[in-house]
């Protein structure tokens, strides 16, 4: 078992990593919000989802957050009538990704908040460290 303060920093670091992974997925979804397929009638980009899990890190003996899985959203695609589109089928219907930009935005906000919370923990832990070091400084 490592020092609890070191452990706090490691855990908060894993939280930061998990949340930035989530932001990456959100960015991917947003960027591909209108990516259609290339051949007529083909499927467009499918929205990706991310889940986390709590996992014991055996080297240090602390529980860290890990990205469990990056999956796909199985909901239906949006459809639009657009005969000129290269991805349109014989009826002129184009399938568009099942990305809801509003949903992605709120997900992004939440990831941002959680990231900030983890950063705050890092800051607090550093303060605890420096308080301990200050004990040595002035006690001469």
């Amino acid at each position, binding site marked *: *078992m490592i*020092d*609890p*303060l070191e*452990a*706090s*920093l490691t*855990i*908060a670091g*894993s*939280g930061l990593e*998990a*949340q930035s992974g*989530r932001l990456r997925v959100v960015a991917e979804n947003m960027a591909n919000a209108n990516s259609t397929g290339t051949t007529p009638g083909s499927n467009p980009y499918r929205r990706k989802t991310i*889940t*986390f*899990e*709590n996992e*014991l890190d055996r080297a240090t*003996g*602390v*529980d*860290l*957050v890990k990205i469990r899985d990056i999956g796909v959203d199985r909901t239906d695609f949006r459809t639009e009538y657009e005969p000129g589109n290269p991805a349109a089928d014989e009826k002129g219907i184009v399938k568009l990704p099942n990305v809801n930009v509003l949903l992605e935005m709120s997900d992004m906000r*939440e*990831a941002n*908040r*959680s990231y900030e*919370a*983890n950063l*705050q*923990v890092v800051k*607090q*832990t550093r*303060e*605890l460290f420096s*308080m*301990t070091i*200050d*004990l040595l400084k*002035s*006690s001469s």
Partner: protein
Amino acid sequence: MQPIYLFDLASQQARWLTVKQAVIAQNVANANTPGYVAKDIGEFEDVFDGAQLQLAATNPAHLGTDPLDPASAAEREENPWEIVYSGNSVGTEKQMLKAGKINREYSLNTSIVKAFDQMLSASVKG
């Protein structure tokens, strides 16, 4: 007069506070993990009183009986502010408040140690 083992007491409390900080770090990091239940460790008085009698771990494979081990902090947090649909009960705001409290208590702790140390060195130096 009863002797006061202040340095020992202070270091125990500092250790308890750092463990609490580690538990809070774990809660905050798992703020979006499905099914994660927020954890906490017991109050300092309880942990300190209960720590008098401990089983000796003579082998590294022995399971820790140390109440100040973050890994054994299985106690779930009492009355969480919110439990979301995924079963996660971490309220980030509550964790931040707790972290602030730890910061204050740690500050008090180190200040007392510092003052006591000055008193001690004043009496030693004469």
